[in-house]
């Protein structure tokens, strides 16, 4: 079923690294084969987001063959120096990235009812139109695939259009995988929880469970939601500014 406020976009890049902390043992990073729910949500939040709304990722379509490539890197430690020479410590790590990726994503937004003070900002049309326009412009902020160094491009697309590498592949399971985080501002509970699930890809398509449908969860820590009020959120006025832009370049 297609939602009224459903958006579709394509995200592509030369490298991608989707992982959870479990895949980063000893400072080495190893990517999952497919993007996590949280990574795609993060991409969409970079494209357009307001505390008023929560993006729900419905489905992703893997367009290119899943290929990996390793890179050897030499990260600097934040603290500590070597005992002998006093020079900063470096570590040598191998990061394994996905290479040459392209995904089609379908998503929609829902109101965040944990923010009653933003009730006046719940204007579905406004957010929908701005989101669509931001997708056209490649996003309000820059977009990356999992980690900051994997810069990516967002472009509009028709979900399901074009030929994908897994169109006739059948089904492929990825085992237990990280789904996303439950943040306190979206659940209303003062804690940070990780969600896990077992995704299955059918002919290149992965239908995501909704966050509230995930049953495997692990509480990580306590956390308080960030407060958005008139001091740091300009909601309606910001839209006035956007209104100008509509006039300029519609």
């Amino acid at each position, binding site marked *: 079923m297609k939602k009224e406020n459903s958006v579709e976009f394509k995200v592509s890049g030369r490298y991608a690294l989707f992982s959870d902390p479990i895949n980063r043992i000893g400072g080495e990073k190893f990517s999952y084969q497919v993007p996590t729910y949280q990574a795609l949500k993060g991409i969409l939040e970079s494209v357009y987001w307001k505390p008023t709304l929560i993006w729900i990722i419905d489905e992703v379509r893997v367009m290119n063959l899943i290929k990996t*490539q390793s890179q*050897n890197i030499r990260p600097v430690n934040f*603290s500590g*120096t070597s005992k002998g020479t006093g020079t900063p*410590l470096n570590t040598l790590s*191998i990061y394994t990235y996905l*290479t040459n990726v392209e995904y089609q994503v379908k998503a929609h937004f829902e109101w965040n009812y944990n923010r009653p003070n933003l009730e006046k900002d719940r204007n579905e049309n406004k957010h929908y139109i701005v989101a669509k326009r931001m997708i056209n412009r490649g996003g309000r*902020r820059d977009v990356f695939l999992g980690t900051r160094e994997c*810069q990516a491009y967002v472009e509009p697309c028709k979900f399901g259009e074009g030929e994908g590498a897994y169109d006739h592949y059948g089904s492929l399971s990825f085992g237990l995988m990280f789904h996303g985080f439950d943040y306190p501002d979206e659940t209303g509970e003062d804690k940070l929880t990780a969600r896990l699930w077992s995704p299955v890809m059918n002919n290149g398509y992965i239908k995501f469970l909704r966050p509230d449908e995930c049953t495997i969860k692990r509480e990580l820590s306590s*956390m308080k939601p960030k407060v958005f009020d008139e001091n740091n959120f300009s909601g309606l006025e910001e839209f006035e500014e956007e209104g100008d832009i509509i006039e300029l370049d519609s």
Partner: protein
Amino acid sequence: MSNFENKIDFAVVISVKNANPNGDPLNGNRPRENYDGFGEISDVCIKRKIRNRFQDMDQAIFVQSDERRTDGFRSLKDRADGCEELKKSSKDKEQYAKIACEKWIDVRSFGQVFAFKKGGDDNSVSIGIRGPVSIHSAVSISPIEISSMQITKSVNGETGKDPDKKSPDTMGMKHRVEFGAYVIYGSINTQLATKTGFNQEDSELVKKALITLFENDCSSARPDGSMEVCKLYWWKHNSKIGQYSSAKVHRTLRIAPTIEMPKDINDYNITHETLDGLAPEIYDGI
């Protein structure tokens, strides 16, 4: 200080002749090469060079490499802790980020993670600042050819017990790219600029740094003149959000080899389409 109001996309065409643009530390320092045989320069390598140029322009830099540090601090944590105002506001994360951004140009350009030990406080997590300047890894236009040579060190490092006895030679390898043309793509985002306080003047410094990227960068692996900035394309959009997506803008630059084995930047045909209402400023490297 004027606010940063126009989105910017940029592309830098670089030529490499008999040099090692970015060695791979776990691969004997051979130039980085991807599985398809194309050369690569990592984004962090490019950011390091931009930071070095900032330092040459007397800007305050947070991530200083040890061999060219301008203060006494030997680690990032020492430098962060060495800043009085910063230390005072370690309880207030937003204030902390604000001060760090004001103080260091690389923090407000590229962002930075300030790592903290987990404390009792509910929200005591490390501070992550997302910077407006994003840079893709540079990839060569054609596959690169790497040549390697063996080198020897035949000098005594220390005088041994018997001063007349020569210590055995040490063998080593040096690698270089015969010729390669690379392109760096990047952009500067207005929304993140507002958050970090990155301003118009800073963007001019980034531009200047990119044009002069390899000044003061010579080393035995990259002798002066072996690496050159050929062209800088600088697209300044007319609005905050930009007229076109970066994907579209970056794609307008076309670089095609005119012969099968390019040995020189002139063996490439560099052209660009102009998008409606968005013409790039084009600079030659110095």
